[in-house]
């Protein structure tokens, strides 16, 4: 079978449950050209190098003939166009937007914001697990870890952070799905999908515009901070606020769900680790488990938005200027040339330098939030679910090869342990 077809096999839904053997095959040729003309890079060193390579742009306008925004503008109807979000632009604009976002999110201006949310995270997780007791589907004690837990949890968190009413979730759910689908390379050609992405983004943006209109005084939430913001570069122009709020909402939605669901699945497949987590006598274990999950079962399998500004030589292959490059993070994090025993799930490994959150200037903005979310979620699931069992292995997966995760994760259990008394509950993790 020719090398080129490995990538297409990976994209095919049939390999969703276990793409890793195909990634191993892909890595044999660090750079391959895909059928759609884009390039695919799959080895650790090469991906790390490209994530920090200034000759790669994240702005699709560097593709020859790219016209993602054209139809929306031409038709003159539909939602007003929004500028691209931080993930699709380059410095210096990227850095300016990212600084403005960070100003309302973390150090140096809001250093304690995420740390201060940790009690909240635990409270949300606790109440979701409390509710499992009432979820007696089909008579047995059974939950869907995705729909009953891994999805609602990060959604609630991102809503609180942004200052979005939780009850609006059904409204933006459809847009979010549309955005995610636009990021699925099996649903169409890149530029066409970018057009769908712009449209969905604009829909969410319009929702945010109305939300901001309807609100009186700005609150302490991130959105208010962006709009009213202080600092030399503030406030962020409204259209930029809308575009990036949409990104945050969706990124906050559709990634952590997979980390938690992949995490629970992996733990159930490695009962010895689940047991250790349940015993709770290794205070750092959850931290290491989550890092290892980001390496071993990463929620974002690859990045498809890198564009060469010049001819670039990668591992002996010239990628010509104006090409689109896919960086297969999930394959890189399991590259045996750089990671010892990469196909083993081993939370005890030292020096875990994975690619789960990308790298370089676009390194995941939400990582400082996603990490404690997953740490707390998995710790509490491990502690409180009595004798949890997978109903189906492998579970059914979502179609998307980029944001890869189970569509449902049915788990049976014997009971729910009570939460720890408030006095014994950690203020952080533990």
């Amino acid at each position: 079978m020719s090398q080129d077809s490995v990538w297409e096999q990976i994209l095919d839904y049939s390999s969703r449950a276990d793409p890793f053997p195909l990634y191993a095959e892909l890595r044999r040729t660090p750079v391959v050209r895909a059928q759609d003309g884009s390039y695919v890079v799959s080895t650790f060193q090469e991906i790390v190098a490209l994530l920090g390579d200034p000759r790669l742009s994240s702005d699709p306008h560097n593709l020859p003939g790219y016209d993602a925004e054209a139809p929306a503008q031409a038709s003159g109807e539909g939602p007003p166009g929004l500028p691209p979000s931080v993930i699709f632009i380059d410095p210096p604009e990227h850095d300016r937007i990212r600084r403005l976002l960070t100003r309302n999110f973390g150090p140096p201006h809001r250093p304690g914001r995420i740390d201060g949310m940790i009690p909240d995270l635990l409270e949300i997780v606790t109440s979701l697990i409390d509710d499992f007791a009432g979820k007696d589907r089909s008579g047995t004690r059974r939950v869907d870890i995705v729909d009953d837990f891994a999805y609602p949890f990060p959604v609630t968190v991102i809503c609180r952070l942004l200052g979005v009413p939780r009850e609006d979730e059904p409204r933006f759910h459809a847009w979010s799905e549309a955005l995610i689908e636009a990021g699925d390379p099996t649903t169409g050609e890149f530029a066409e999908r970018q057009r769908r992405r712009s449209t969905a983004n604009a829909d969410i943006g319009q929702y945010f515009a109305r939300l901001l209109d309807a609100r009186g005084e700005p609150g302490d939430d991130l959105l208010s901070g962006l709009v009213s913001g202080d600092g030399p570069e503030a406030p962020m122009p409204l259209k930029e606020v809308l575009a990036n709020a949409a990104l945050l909402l969706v990124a906050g939605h559709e990634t952590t769900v997979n980390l938690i669901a992949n995490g629970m699945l992996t733990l159930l497949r490695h009962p010895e680790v689940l047991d250790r987590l349940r015993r709770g006598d290794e205070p750092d274990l959850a931290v290491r488990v989550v890092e290892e999950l980001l390496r071993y079962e990463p929620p974002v399998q690859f990045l498809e938005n890198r564009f060469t500004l010049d001819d670039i030589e990668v591992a002996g292959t010239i990628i010509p200027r104006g090409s689109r490059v896919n960086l297969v993070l999930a394959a890189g994090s399991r590259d045996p040339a750089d990671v010892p025993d990469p196909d083993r799930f081993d939370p005890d490994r030292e020096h875990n330098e994975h690619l789960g959150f990308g790298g370089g200037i676009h390194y995941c903005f939400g990582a400082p939030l996603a990490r404690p979310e997953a740490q707390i979620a998995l710790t509490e699931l491990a502690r409180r679910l009595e004798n949890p069992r997978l109903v189906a292995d492998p579970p059914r997966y979502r179609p998307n090869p980029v944001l890869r995760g189970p569509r449902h994760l049915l788990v049976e259990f014997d009971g729910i342990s009570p939460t720890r008394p408030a006095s014994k509950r950690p203020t952080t993790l533990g």
Partner: protein
Amino acid sequence: MKVVVDLTRCQGYAQCAFAAPDVFTIQGDEALLYDPAPDDAQREKIVRAAAACPVQAIALERYDRFGREEVRRPHQPPEAVAHAAAVSPEEAFKRNGRIVIVGASLAGLQAGRTLRRDGFTGSLTVIGDEPYPPYDRPPLSKQVLIGQASARATALPRRDEIDAHWRLGVPATGLDLRGKHVLLADGQTVGFDRLLIATGLRARPWPNEAEARLDGMFTVRTPDDVEGLRQALTAGPGRVLVIGAGFTGCEVASACRELDLAVTVVDRGPAPLTGALGAVIGGVAAEMMRGHGVDLRCGVQVAALEGDGDGRLRRARLSDGSTLDVDVAVAALGSIRNVEWLEGSGLAAGVWGVGCDAGCRAFDLNGVVTDDVFVAGDVARSPHPVYGYQFLALEHWGNAVAQAEIAAHNMISAQSERWPHLALPEFWSTQFGTEIKSVGVPTYADHVVIAQGSVVERRFVAVYGYRGRITAAVAFNQAKWLEFYERLIDRAAPFPPSFRTVDEPADRRPVAAEVPDGPTPQATVVVTGHRPSERRATLVRKTYL
């Protein structure tokens, strides 16, 4: 607990500062300052911080994140001495040899750890003249001066693991190469089979001894120095004078401004940091300093310092005839290599340091390489193929670590298994909320060009070239790009860079580098390989200018 961040490796992702905001703080865009001895109550958060660091740059007391190659070369437990079957002399030495390390600081500690990690089970003695266990110096001119950490709380983590005989507070006073022992100030001798010299530097004192004794005069190298300086700064002096605008001087000035103290910096050169970065980028640093309220005076020297009747510093006379009323002065005049104890040893030791080959083996006075004496860290001076085989003496944290690892590896390896120390020089400096990072040798240049970003915003990458190839890159608040340029230096890529990049300045024209002494004509080599075990130089005949 103890924390140390490898800031050569850190790229300012700030993940640590999110996770443990009371321990790790970010200044400006990406300058990290941290508390090296945080309260144990912070432990959980610190562990989360270390785990979250995307480049794994944070080392803790019991959690090994130190050293780039730590797990990539898996630990090999010493094999049991099974049969008396022929063991090679190298293997026998590894099991039962005697190694002595002189200098109990960064390089000495890192060498000791590497020796043990790589299976050296013989006897290890570490001799240090300071009374303290190994500690970290970079925080002394940064976190400590602004009060984020205490001068005596920058101990380096994980000393206990080395299982060594520590002789602290006793200087080595001599070396007998023929008898293979080190002489100590207390009259004892310590025998060795192999020796590592890691005695580093000390601060160059103010040359006028009487003036240097004035109350209010400081240098910055040790905790004692810095504890005194910190006290003097918190006492609310009217004005602080910093003599010398190298990295130490600039960092002290930055701390003064952070403490809202009036500060004058005097340097005889055309701009700050000229010795390290050349006058062009030095000029950018000058603007940055002035923008932060520093009274910077270049092209001027301090002619004399005057005290009052009680021996307290009161005034400085400058070479341009002006005077300054000052209560505190910091002599940041560079350094003196700690080589006096090697006098008469027959080694090539002098003001230049201790000469050694790229495999860290010391040269004798005749320039012949020795076999059992190794050198690492600030005291070493070794040839670098990338820089025309010139002997480089580097005063950088990252070099001390990398060179110590190579030296340690070579000390317990057969000739054919030895590695060259080919790491490119790298350093960082944190000042005025800006992270300055450098790779390569910026003074080995004839031209410099702003390759990315904006000088006005002080967010840029400057690329240095010599005779048509890239030799160095310096980033102000743009650390995430530097590894890319590091690879270009390794490959002897052509200068000026002609490729298109993001954030390309409108005018990408090289200007004369204005470095102190231009290099001499040289060889061009290409370095390949990522890990120390793989890095090798190849001579190439590129047709550059």
